[in-house]
């Protein structure tokens, strides 16, 4: 066999280069990365974030009109960690007071305005017994 530089090396080098290019391309056009924070960390941050917390009642309003209004508190935190949230769009079946949810949006004049349809609820632990001690 004639001695020549292996194309395998070339192929690998090219694919690595290709990958890097794609990563750059991706970060420049499709950035869909949001910090995930707890309500008490929100304070005065106004960039787009993912907020994860527990729903505090009462739940008011209409998700398909002016929007639902409720308070989201830290998981494992108390009422003082709460932030008012306004949300419109699809409401998952499991949404109710005491449930852990995740919404994406940004803080506007003291109210966290969630993007329509961004709400995700966490299932109550699949087979776990009913949680009685979760303060709502």
């Amino acid at each position: 066999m004639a001695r020549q530089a292996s194309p395998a090396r070339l192929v690998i080098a090219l694919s690595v280069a290709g990958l890097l290019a794609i990563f750059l391309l991706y970060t420049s056009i499709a950035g869909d990365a949001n910090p995930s924070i707890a309500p008490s960390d929100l304070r005065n941050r106004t960039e787009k974030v993912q907020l994860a917390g527990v729903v505090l009642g009462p739940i008011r309003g209409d998700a398909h009109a002016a929007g639902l209004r409720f308070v989201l508190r830290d998981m494992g935190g108390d009422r003082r960690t709460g932030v008012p949230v306004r949300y419109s769009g699809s409401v998952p079946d499991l949404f109710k007071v005491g449930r852990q949810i995740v919404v994406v949006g940004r803080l506007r004049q003291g109210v966290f305005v969630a993007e329509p349809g961004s709400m995700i609820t966490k299932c109550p632990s699949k087979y776990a017994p009913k949680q009685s001690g979760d303060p709502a």
Partner: protein
Amino acid sequence: MAELGRAALLVTLGLAVYALVAGAAAAYLGRRRLALSAQNALTAASFSTLVASGVLLAALVRSDFSFSYVARTTSEALPLQYKISAFWGGQEGSLLFWLAILTACGALAVRLNRAWARDLIVWAVPVFAAVAVFFSFLVVVVASPFATQAAPLDGAGMTPSLQNPYMLAHPIFLYLGYVGLTVPFAFALGSLLSGRVDERWLVATRRWTLFAWAALGIGQLLGSHWAYVEVGWGGYFAWDPVENAALMPWLAATAFLHSVMIQEKRGMLRVWNILLVLLAFALALFGTFLTRSGILNSIHSFTQSSIGPWFLAFIALTVAVSLTLLFRRLPQLRSPTRLESPVSREAAFLYNNLLLLALCLTILWGVVYPILSEAVRGEAVVLGRAYYDFFLRIFGLPLLLLMGIGPLIAWRRASLQSLLTTFRWPTLVALVSGVVLLTLGAGSSIPGLIAYTFAAFVLTTIVLEFARGTRARMALGAGSWSGAFFSLLTRNRRRYGGYVVHASIVILAVGIAGSSAFDSVAEARLTRGDSMSIGDYTLVYQSLDERVASNATEIRATLGVSRGDRDLGTLEAGKNAYTVEAQLSNEVGIRSDLLTGEDLFVIAEQVDPDGTVYFRVFVKPLVNLIWIAGFVFVLGSLIALWPNAREQRRLIQRSSEIGLPATR
């Protein structure tokens, strides 16, 4: 009874430890009888695990609430099939289920291969045993399914969404897939440990890998269909960490199934294949870790528990040991042949592997990114759907195209001339269908259009391959056309089964592209008598009914559906309110058009007390192809899996001759 279960698991742990220690000693010292004894211990462990599983199943069926596990996962009134499915539903039970499949698969794989690959087997046994030690340690010490308590009057019951026929099959297939990947891993490590780094471990595990891979694929499709029909948000895959946890090992195993062929034929990619099998196994463990540790925010949140750190430690140990071994055997693993041209079948398979791996690793990156960013920046950053969709297109579309090119291009070095003749028709068909689709308006989504065009290309190559093969067999005197076709299928099951699987992936790709790139959605709040339209469908909200079933109040809105002038009957969508569990669930209305594969998908998002309903309606073209692809996938996997003594003999024969750069 619980004592019997506990005792059986202790016996399993003891046998597994013995199989590990004695097996390793026997292999190291070359003691044949001791090695046999270790193999028998592995077989015995599978029986003691079976006993433990029997005890747990009996307790579940009899609703023996003195078992904490039974009380936590079921209730008296639960239908029998869901009492059984609770076996793999909860954490402790699923670990036991894993152990049972593992020991059974291990014992069987060892038995089937010990006649012709004894030197591999003696080292594969301690590897199986080591994994079994880990899992039996978990169910004995950390999370015992046989913990007892004073029996309560009734159990806590099962979440309504899990009381579903899909939950009888979906987890079983996923577990078969996860655990099945242990077999190629154990044989790969066995070959490294024994120093016999030839191609035999591939031949021994080929069908196991195929089986595990097919099971993982079927399990995921079942899960998607369940999400589509039952969860009812209008989608079937959400890039959730737990969904990704099953997808990643499947992608790694897919890459492995392809690169194996290069090693079998040309003796190349030896190190790469071992790395892939290690990756697939580690990802299977990682998947279990993800679902059980609660470290990530997932829609699926399982019982969070203390087994997470154990899993991480075991994954780290597995990877460290495997890499050390691999490094020590590197000189022996040098390939006797090399890639001769970047335009050849080897190269095409290599590109396929790089793309699959890139997709797998970008998904992994997305899954662990919140953890990494939290560690580095002190704040978890979550990558959204756009991240995954982007990379699915970037890596998935070239993969689709390669699926048409790879199987047809010549080994070693393909000439331009041969490429032109081979791909003339597929390219033509692809271009024509691209233009036709463009005039039909498919240009609204460029990735969708590209996917369709590539799909046409691949399908044409597959059809041509079948036609060519059938004609060749007819020329050999196979009589009728259909006889020639079947003899073609049976003569080379792996190859033609593979084509059928490829066809299923093309169908899947068309279904995904159609339903995600060309779907439409409309929403409106309607009072009775109002209508809305989407595409050429018109929906009239006719009535709202409330029915009381045994466990839930069912609220249903009835919609009259018509398309153009044609009346298509009615569709119901609504909600179930489960009284005991105090839970709501969406019950969507789906109208499938069998001719076009299109679905009209109606969600009654919100039902107001005055009877107005907020509807969200999707039209999803071609979505039914995804489920049809599932059946084709099963068919292709079965063809490829079907035992074929002659082919196995040929592979064994070839594996002893491989390593010579000569061409055959």
